[in-house]
Structure formats: C-alpha cells, structure tokens
C-alpha cells in the first residue's frame, strides 16, 4: 500500500467516521441519563436531514428572489442553526410523548417505543413527501485540492473540522459547566441524584435536545457529502452508530467519538484491503472480536451504577 493511497483512505475514513461519532453521541448521552437506548435516534438523524433540506430550500428561495440576499455560507450556517433547534424540539417531543410516560415501565417497553417512533417518522415522511429521492441543495461549491496525490475537498475539511469542534465543545460542556455536572451526577445514579434537588425532567430534556441537535448536524453534513436523501437512510446508519456507542462504552462521550472514528476507519480499510463485497462481514466480525475482549467497550464500566459521561 503506497503512502498516498494510505493517506487518501485515512481522509475518507475521517469523514465517514465523523457521522458515526456524531450520531453515537446521541445514543450514549441518553443511555447514561436514562439507562435506555433511544432506538428512534437513527430516524431523528434522518428527520434532521430532511428538516435541513426544507430550511435550506426556504433560505435559498428567499435570497434568490431578492427578499434576503445572503451568501451561501451564511445560508449554510443559518440552515444548521435553525435545523438544530427544530430537531432538538423533535427530540424533546419524542421524549415527552414516547419515553416520559414509560419512565417506570420495564426497559423493554421503552425500547420498543423507540422502534415504533422510528417507524412513525419513516412512514410519516413517506406519506408527506412520497418515495421520491430528494436532493440536498448544493450550498457549497465543491473544490478539490490535491496535496501530494491525496485529494481533499473543502466539504471534507468542513465536515471533519466542525464535527471534531462540536465533540470538543460537548466534552467541555459536560466537564466544565454546572448543567454538565448535573448530567454527570444523573448518570452516576438516576434514582438518588434527583432526590438531592437535581431536576430530573429538565436534565432529560436537555440531554435529548443536545443529542437530537447533534443528529441534525450529522444529517445536514450527510446531505452535503451524500446529497441524495431517502426516508430509510437512518435505519442501517442508526444501527451502525449504535454499534459505535456500545463499542465506545455505554454512556461515554469520549468513547462514542473515538469508536465512531474507529468504526469508519475499519469499514474503509476493510473495503480497501479485502474484496469490497466482504466489507461488512469482515468489519463487523472484527468488532465482535473486540467486544469479546472488551465486553464493556473502551471506556465503559462493568456496573451500570458507575456509568459516567
């Protein structure tokens, strides 16, 4: 394997891993607060992407007809902001309608609630927009740079850079702020900590809002990198990000990010070294092997009471 070939694959893997990382974070955060895997998360990612299309199309139309002339990068920034807020509301609504009434129900009931909400989001989208594929508006004119034989696009730099920045911000938020401290405390013991005056509902809402907001960012970045959207795009991708969340260690922010990039790297390099038909077979056998030796993932703890963010 030549050096440029290797580096090209590293660049490809970084982009692919950013999506897994951003989505895995949502799974991980909700798990640490509620001890619950939010199986609707993959579809929240999908919905975030579609909301992004709607917002971007609206803004582009506004600026084209001269009502609000904006350069493309401002349109993109506004699209991300507005979509994050809207998708955060969606995530909070999912929590309020789907999970809160079941907080004291068996965990399995809450898990299938997530699956059902996912199906509702998919089919709702199908009914609303039809089975037609949707194109994500091209807000960034793609520019390809060549650095010693390695091709990098402005899109890739933007996606990987912003994803890393967001992950770092989240880490700082959880470690350095009062709200972050409350979240860590909740993750430590979600039965006792509310008795000490930490508002359970508010922390839960905050967690869902942040997780869904990150999913919306992932959805928009995904639309920029792979501009053909369909209502089922969140299913398989959500499952794989869920694998990353487990691999990172349930409830670990750092672990989820790292595992996301690791999963992307494994997938890309397996397809590069072996025949591409065998990609998922070999990649996920490898992950199975990792879990055999580290059943709690990289940063997970053996006991649920010691989960930490």
């Amino acid at each position, binding site marked *: 394997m*030549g050096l440029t*070939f290797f580096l*090209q*694959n590293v660049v*490809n893997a970084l*982009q*692919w891993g950013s999506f897994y990382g951003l989505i895995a974070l949502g799974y991980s955060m909700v798990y640490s607060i509620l001890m619950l895997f939010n199986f609707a998360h993959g579809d929240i990612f999908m919905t975030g992407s579609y909301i992004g299309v709607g917002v971007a199309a609206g803004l582009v139309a506004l600026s084209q007809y001269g009502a609000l002339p904006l350069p493309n990068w401002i349109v993109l920034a506004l699209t991300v902001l507005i979509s994050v807020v809207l998708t955060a509301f969606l995530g909070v609504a999912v929590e309020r309608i789907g999970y809160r009434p079941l907080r004291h129900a068996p965990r399995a009931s809450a898990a299938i609630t997530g699956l059902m909400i996912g199906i509702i989001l998919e089919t709702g989208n199908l009914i609303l927009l*039809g*089975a*037609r*594929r949707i*194109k994500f508006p*091209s807000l960034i004119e*793609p520019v*390809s740079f*060549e650095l010693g034989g390695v*091709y990098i*696009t402005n*899109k890739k730099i933007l996606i990987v850079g912003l994803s890393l920045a967001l992950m770092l911000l989240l880490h700082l938020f959880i470690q350095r702020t009062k709200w972050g401290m409350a979240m860590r405390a909740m993750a430590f013991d979600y039965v006792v900590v509310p008795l000490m005056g930490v508002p359970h509902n508010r922390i839960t809402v905050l967690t869902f809002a942040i997780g869904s907001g990150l999913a919306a960012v992932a959805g928009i970045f*995904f639309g920029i*990198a*792979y*501009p*053909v959207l*369909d209502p*089922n*795009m969140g299913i*398989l991708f959500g499952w794989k990000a869920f694998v990353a969340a487990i691999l990172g260690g349930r409830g670990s922010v750092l672990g989820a990010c790292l595992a996301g990039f690791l999963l992307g790297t494994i*997938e*890309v*390099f397996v*397809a*590069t070294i072996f*025949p*591409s*038909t065998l*990609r*998922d077979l070999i990649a996920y056998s490898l992950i199975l092997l990792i879990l055999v030796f580290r059943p709690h993932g990289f940063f997970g703890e053996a006991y649920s009471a010691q989960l930490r963010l």
Partner: protein
Amino acid sequence: MKRILVGIMAWLLALSAQASDVIKIGIDASMTGDKSKVGEGTRYAAQLWLEDIKKAGGLKVGGKTYQVELAVEDSESKAESAVKAATKLITEDGVLFIVGPQASVEAVPAGEVANNQATPLISAWSTNPNATLNRPYVFRACFLDPFQGPVVAGFVAKHYGFKKAAVLYDVASDYPKGLAENFKAAWESRNGAGSVVAYESFSTNDKDFSSQLTKIIKSGADFLFTPQYYAEVPLIVQQAHELGFKKPIVGSDSWGSAELTKLCGKDCNGLMFSTHYAAAGAKGKTKEFIDRYNKEFGYVPDDVGALTWDALGLVQTAIQNCGKLTGDIKADRTCVRDGMSKIRQFDGITGKMNFSKGNDPEKCAVIVRISDKGEFEFFDSICPDSMAKN
C-alpha cells in the same frame, strides 16, 4: 365449502359471459414504493393508448367491435405484491392480457403466476432473462442483459479504444449484479483475462463509495462502468470526481430516469449509458408519442413509458391475430397467446423488434449522451448481429 366454491365459479362464469363484448387488460405496476416513477410512466402510457382505442370506437377483432377496459393494480415495488396483483387480475378481474410488472425483481415471480394460470403477460422493461425463461405465456418488449453487457463493452472499446475497465455494482441487487457479470465476461473476451482491473461492489443503501473508488483510481482503469439505479449514480459520480477521477463513467438502462439529472446536476453532463430509446432528437411516431405525453402529463416520458406503449401495441396486434374471441376467457387467453407468438416483426416507437427466437425480442440498443442541458441525447445505436442497422 364446496357450495361456496361452486357459487363463486358460477358468479365468475356469469361475469365473464356478461362481459363478453368487453376486453379487459390488466396493468400490474409499481404505483407506490421506491420505483413509483416507473408505475406512473406505465399508467400514463396506458391511458394514452386507451384514449386512442376509445377514439376509434373500440377494438375490432374478427369483424366484431369490443370495448376495452383497463384494470390497474399496484405492485408496490415489491415482489410479493406484484404476485398478489397478478393473481387478482387473473382470477377476479378476468383480464385477457397483463401488462407489467416492469422491474425484473417483480416481473420474475409475477411471470410465474401468469404462466401457471395460462394468462399471457408482457413486461415492457424487465431485462433479466429469468422473467420469460421456459414460460410460453410470458413476453417482453425490451432487450436482455446478456445483450446489453456486450453492447456497452463493444461501444466503449470502439468509441474510446480503451483496454482496462473498472466496474462498481451493488452485489445485493439482481439487475446490477447480473449486468456487471455480463459486462465483465464480454470485456474479458474482447481484451483478455485480467482486463477488468477493478471489480468492486457495495450493498444496497450504501452511500459512501470512497474506498471502492480510491481502489478503482489506483488500479489505473481507463473508465468506470456502473450499472446502478438513478438514485445511486449521482453519489458515485460526484464522489469519483471529488477523488480526482476524470475519466469517463458509463452506465446502463437503469440510469434512464427523468430524476437522474435532477439529482446529479452538472456532474453527470457528458456521460453516456445504454438504453432503449433516446427522447431528445426523436423522429416520426416516436416524437409524436413524446410530444403527446409531454403535453398531457408535463414531462418527457422515460423509457418505461415508451416501452409500455409498444407493449400495448403488441397486445393489440396479438388480440387481432387471434381472429375471434369466444367469450370463454380461458380459451381466449390461449388464443391471444398464440396470436402473440405469431408476431415475427414489430415496428415500435422504441425501434424494430424481431421475435423470431421466441418470446424475447431482438432489438437495437441506443447509446445516450447526457447533454450539457441535462437532456438524454441520441449518440449511437448498436444492433444485434442478426439485425441490420437502419
């Protein structure tokens, strides 16, 4: 139970006797699901055909004029629903002939049902050989993948003079997988073993092809052949360009949807693919059909619409070849099937068809170039050896 069955039989007989001066044609197509555009094209073409029949006052068969009705069923883009729809058309609606389903994944199982129930069926768009294989009652109006693979290989070799090919296909879908294999065999028989320097695959619903494309670029291939559906092609083409691949990318008839250029934008301009007909620059009755369809429904028909029109033309000829309808639906179906197999030559809007070798026509393929305006322009036509180029 027996009494109920007898009752139903009697009711069906009464129904078919009553409807003896009405001919029913079944349409089995995907109105919903991920190939909903295919079903739409089928239905619209059938509507235009029915208008013509009505304008002529009905369909004349053996001196008697029959009214024609369409029975439309949705195959939901799924194999099992296509079978259900075909069964309903045969047993409940009592149709004389079924048109569709169009995609091979639906047409292969639905053809089985029609053949077992001795009802003639014609799929306009299915290019997989298994749809008609050993089924005397199943026909088609398009060429086969074992023909299309060599067509693309031959065209690229002649037009560009290339020697090294790369292939990227979906290993989990019948049509791309079959066509990729046909293409590989044809290319290697032309340029020797090992001339397909990269043979890469992915799975349905994959969106990132960067590692496959990086391998393809490294292999030094002269061009990329990717027989994928219109939703995947834009992703493959854009990612290839972003990774610095500047060589031609060539496709097959699954590219030919009006949606392709919408999703792909200018990345696809200048690329070529093999298909059934080219809308831009068409002449004669092909142009007549395109203009009429465009006026009625607001867009240029893709190949499914044009092929459905030809399939219905074939059905009409078959019914007239039968000579005389008795009103006994079973006998009539067999008679129409025989009428269909009497057709040797058919001059359709998608070109001349030659049925001398059974239920699959031999016909010319068209190479289409995507123009800078995103239109599908005629570039070349490639015919089987048995047919002279017109």
